């Protein structure tokens, strides 16, 4: 392929890369950080309601966990442990500084209770 044709390909790739960057930038800026709160109820270390939590990057998230059993509810990636006791509510507040589909587990059995999705 001649030099001029190779240049056309390079130019088009550059356009693709730039437009892709602009698209992502434009679509991932939400309306600024918010405060979000989730009230979770864990039953027998097996299920959690609600189970799919959604937030945006840089939101301040408060999670309140209420469980009918003693044990640890673990939020992976953020590495936050909720040490629960029957009848008590355990709370943690943190800044959503990582994007992820973070698993929420009943630590003793590694059973997945749900996920926290932090999107950009």
């Amino acid at each position: 392929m001649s030099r001029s044709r190779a240049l056309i390909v390079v130019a088009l790739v550059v356009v693709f890369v730039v437009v892709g960057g602009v698209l992502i930038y434009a679509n991932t800026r939400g309306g600024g950080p918010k405060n979000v709160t989730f009230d979770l109820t864990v039953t027998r270390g097996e299920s959690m309601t609600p189970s799919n939590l959604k937030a945006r990057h840089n939101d301040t998230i408060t999670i309140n966990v209420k469980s009918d059993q003693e044990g640890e509810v673990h939020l992976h990636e953020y590495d936050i442990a909720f040490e629960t006791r029957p009848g008590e509510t355990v709370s943690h507040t943190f800044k959503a500084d990582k994007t992820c589909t973070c698993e929420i587990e009943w630590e003793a059995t590694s059973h997945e209770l749900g996920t926290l999705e932090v999107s950009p």
Partner: protein
Amino acid sequence: MLSSQILLHGFGQRFDLQVPLYLYLFAACGVVFLSFVLVVLFAGDTSGSAGISYPRRPVPWLTRVARTPWPRVIGGAVGVSGLLIVVVAGFFGSSVAFDNPAEYVVWIYFWAVTVILSGLVGNLWYLLNPWAAIHDVVARFVPRRAPLKLPRVGVWPAVVTYFAFACLELTSGMASRPQIVAVAVVAYTVITLAGMFLFGRDEWLEHCEAFTVLFGIVGRFGPVEAERDDRGAIREVYLRPWGVGLLQPAPSGWDRVVFVILMLSTLAFDGITATPAWQDFIVVLEPWWEPFGPLGFFVGRTFGLILLTVTFLLVFVAFMEGVMYLGQARVDAKVTVTAFALTLVPIALVYNAAHNYTYMVVYAQYAVPLLNDPLQKGWHLWPAVASFKPSFALAQASTVWYAQIVLIVLGHIVAVLLSHLRAGSVFKSAQRALLSQYPMLLLMVMYTFTSLWILAQPITRES
């Protein structure tokens, strides 16, 4: 339902967010548009046969370094250390994958990082291969000739070994059990060392050792090219553009075609098993496999992997028939099919990099705190790193998505270019060469779309 104790990937759970729909559509349109532009530009080529000669530049300092024994000594020492870590930590360390260095060395540092670096730089396995290093040290003190001659088996033994490795990683459900990984590594070490001593080092490595064959192919994509004389000594080291090494003359045969297709299908399988479509498929088959427990799980998944590989192979062969029909030249089908199979390697490599991106930039860091107490025995070898928290700086979803779509589109373009140059060298008339490219282009678009589709799927888990 199956116990969630059987972890599915070699390692931990993934946490990346799927590529959003708008980006998926943008990348897909980009792929189609750029492919179209490339075809229009190719149409102006009068003769393609000179195409496979590519520019390369000698690098005197690299040649000097390569001629010394040091790269092999250092690489071999790193490789043997890695092997020892896997065996010792695998047998004596924690049984939890996340806390065992063996899992990190095998699935992240070896399987994800070394493959991708070899594509970026050149065949690193040539330097790191621990079994070759052990053989060379022993052979230095006890020189002996191989007592047996390897029959003409092509690389079929390597195909079988690679398939077995893929089963360990993807279908056995055992990849996250360090003891089992260590047993597999010891068994493979014994087989490889015995093979090298019985049949000759290079004979065994080049035909039966799956990773030597694999990295040989991956290394062709890399920019470092070492030219050797008849005795295997380095004559000169060159730098070349990425990808063009795949156009170099290569041994041909169906064994090599199957190997390349297996590279594509195992990678795709790893991604596909995390998609909702696969979950539905598994649920439909549940009445058959569930009564057999883990064995049913293994057989079901292995069946899925074989099915996918055969599908990939049949699709590839069918498209190659189209290429040869439209090229209208009398060509050796085996040689042509092998040559074109290699042009798919860029697509496999970029998908591998996109797929394993978060493993490399985040999970790789989780090994650092383990340095304090690698076997989980309560040691304090390096207390400073015990509280190390991995940085997610490179794993923000927007960065990941950007890297993924750019990589996939670049890989696609390189593959289309290579395939075009290859067609120019196989089919004599430029017009025929161009015509023959339509099926190949369609096939590449299909593969690239599959890669993008997998990345755009929400990650689900079998539970």
